């Protein structure tokens, strides 16, 4: 453990370079062979250490693809039916981390795309930066994302190519699980106070919805009036309802990529809600989101003998 020395690099930077080389070689090969029309990946951002999504269609752009700790975006977002039009027609290749792969598998499971329509380049991902991180320095205990501290999907499975290899990983404390346990130990009144405070800051920019691969409804329930289900103005009542509805609609589907939490300008710990739902569904129905497409999610299926101890 190097928890005290917070700026020490915790992961060998060479592994990111190896993944970058593997992604570039594969992207060039695919584009030159005409196997895909585009490669959805990352390129370096303007500021040092950052990265941004890139749709590579030529050899020149493919040579700019990278993988670095700044590659936070979940690119599976671009593959839902609603957003697929932004990409060239035909088969595309996509660069995914383990958590993004779960989202991609979820989209395939929900018939948003077919497995054979996409060439999946998985990355052996040791971790990426969290939201407020100094991206000019290598990944440290301080700057690593909270989701990466307890990641179980460093190595993608069932992909067409795994780029890079996993370096030895540091042993980090699971901050998010600890926070979840802390909240669960509170009384309902304390939890209500906690969440009311969090939700009262929400400005309803809906970035969490925009960035979520699973929020692909063409008309969101929360935007509708007549009848209006959720108040649309950024006031406490509507905010609370919005976040409850969002967590409910993601239950059993959320891949845990924590993009909602990363993009939230008000730093609301949204992934706690997602994780809570995932935990409950595992405890109730033994369901876990996986890297392979699954036919059914727990809330779209049932068993005759499901628990009904709460029903009179």
């Amino acid at each position: 453990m190097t928890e005290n020395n917070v700026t020490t690099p915790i992961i060998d930077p060479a592994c990111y370079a190896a993944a970058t080389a593997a992604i570039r070689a594969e992207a060039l090969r695919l584009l030159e062979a005409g196997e895909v029309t585009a490669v959805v990946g990352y390129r370096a951002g303007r500021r040092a250490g950052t990265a941004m999504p890139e749709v590579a269609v030529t050899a020149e752009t493919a040579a700019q693809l990278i993988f670095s700790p700044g590659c936070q975006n979940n690119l599976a977002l671009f593959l839902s039916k609603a957003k697929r039009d932004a990409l060239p027609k035909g088969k595309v290749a996509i660069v995914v981390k383990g958590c993004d792969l779960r989202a991609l598998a979820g989209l395939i499971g929900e018939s948003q795309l077919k497995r054979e329509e996409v060439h999946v380049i998985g990355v052996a991902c040791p971790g990426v930066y969290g939201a407020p991180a100094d991206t000019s320095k290598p990944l440290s205990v301080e700057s690593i994302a909270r989701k990466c501290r307890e990641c179980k999907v460093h190595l993608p499975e069932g992909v067409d190519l795994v780029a890079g290899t996993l370096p030895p990983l540091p042993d980090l404390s699971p901050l998010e699980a600890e926070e979840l346990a802390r909240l669960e130990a509170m009384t309902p009144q304390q939890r209500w106070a906690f969440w009311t405070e969090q939700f009262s800051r929400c400005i309803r920019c809906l970035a969490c919805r925009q960035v979520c691969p699973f929020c692909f409804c063409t008309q969101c329930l929360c935007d509708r009036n007549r009848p209006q289900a959720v108040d649309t103005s950024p006031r406490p009542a509507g905010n609370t309802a919005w976040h409850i509805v969002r967590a409910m609609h993601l239950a059993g589907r959320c891949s845990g990529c924590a993009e909602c939490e990363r993009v939230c300008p008000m730093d609301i710990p949204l992934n706690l809600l997602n994780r809570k739902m995932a935990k409950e569904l595992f405890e109730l129905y033994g369901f876990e989101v996986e890297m392979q497409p699954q036919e059914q999610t727990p809330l779209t299926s049932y068993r005759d003998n499901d628990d009904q101890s709460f029903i009179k």
Partner: protein
Amino acid sequence: MHAEKQHHDFEPKLVAFVCTWCTYAGADLAGTSRMHYPSNVRVVKFPCTGRIDPVFILRAFQKGADGVLVSGCHPGDCHYMAGNFHARRRFAAFRQLLDFVGVDLNRLQFSWVSAAEGGKWVDVVSELTERVRELGPMREFRELDAEEHWSAQLNEPELKEAYHTI
């Protein structure tokens, strides 16, 4: 014989979301059998418990319900074969979410009441009414709703104070 009507300081408002095939018919049976149950409950009829979106429950609380009852057919009796099985999973997850956000689950009751169980309907409603009566009014959601709502009165002390500080 009518039981003597008791007077209480607080009469809770309950909203019951029921399915039309079982619980609504059960409540109807209770009525036609001249059974007595608290008039605190407002029944909203749905085709099936599978049609009851969790957002309805939220909205009921926000608009002033002190307790919510969701009731439908027993498992296996659904008119649409599997609506209540799906509802069972959905509500199992939803009540855990509400609990995590800090809502008192004693205000939310789920039940299976068939068309023949007029007596069970009376029991369920009476019990929930008494329980919510003891808990008192549901303040949490109503406070949220009232927050940052301006009364539109120009002589509000709050507004005056804000005016003077500018």
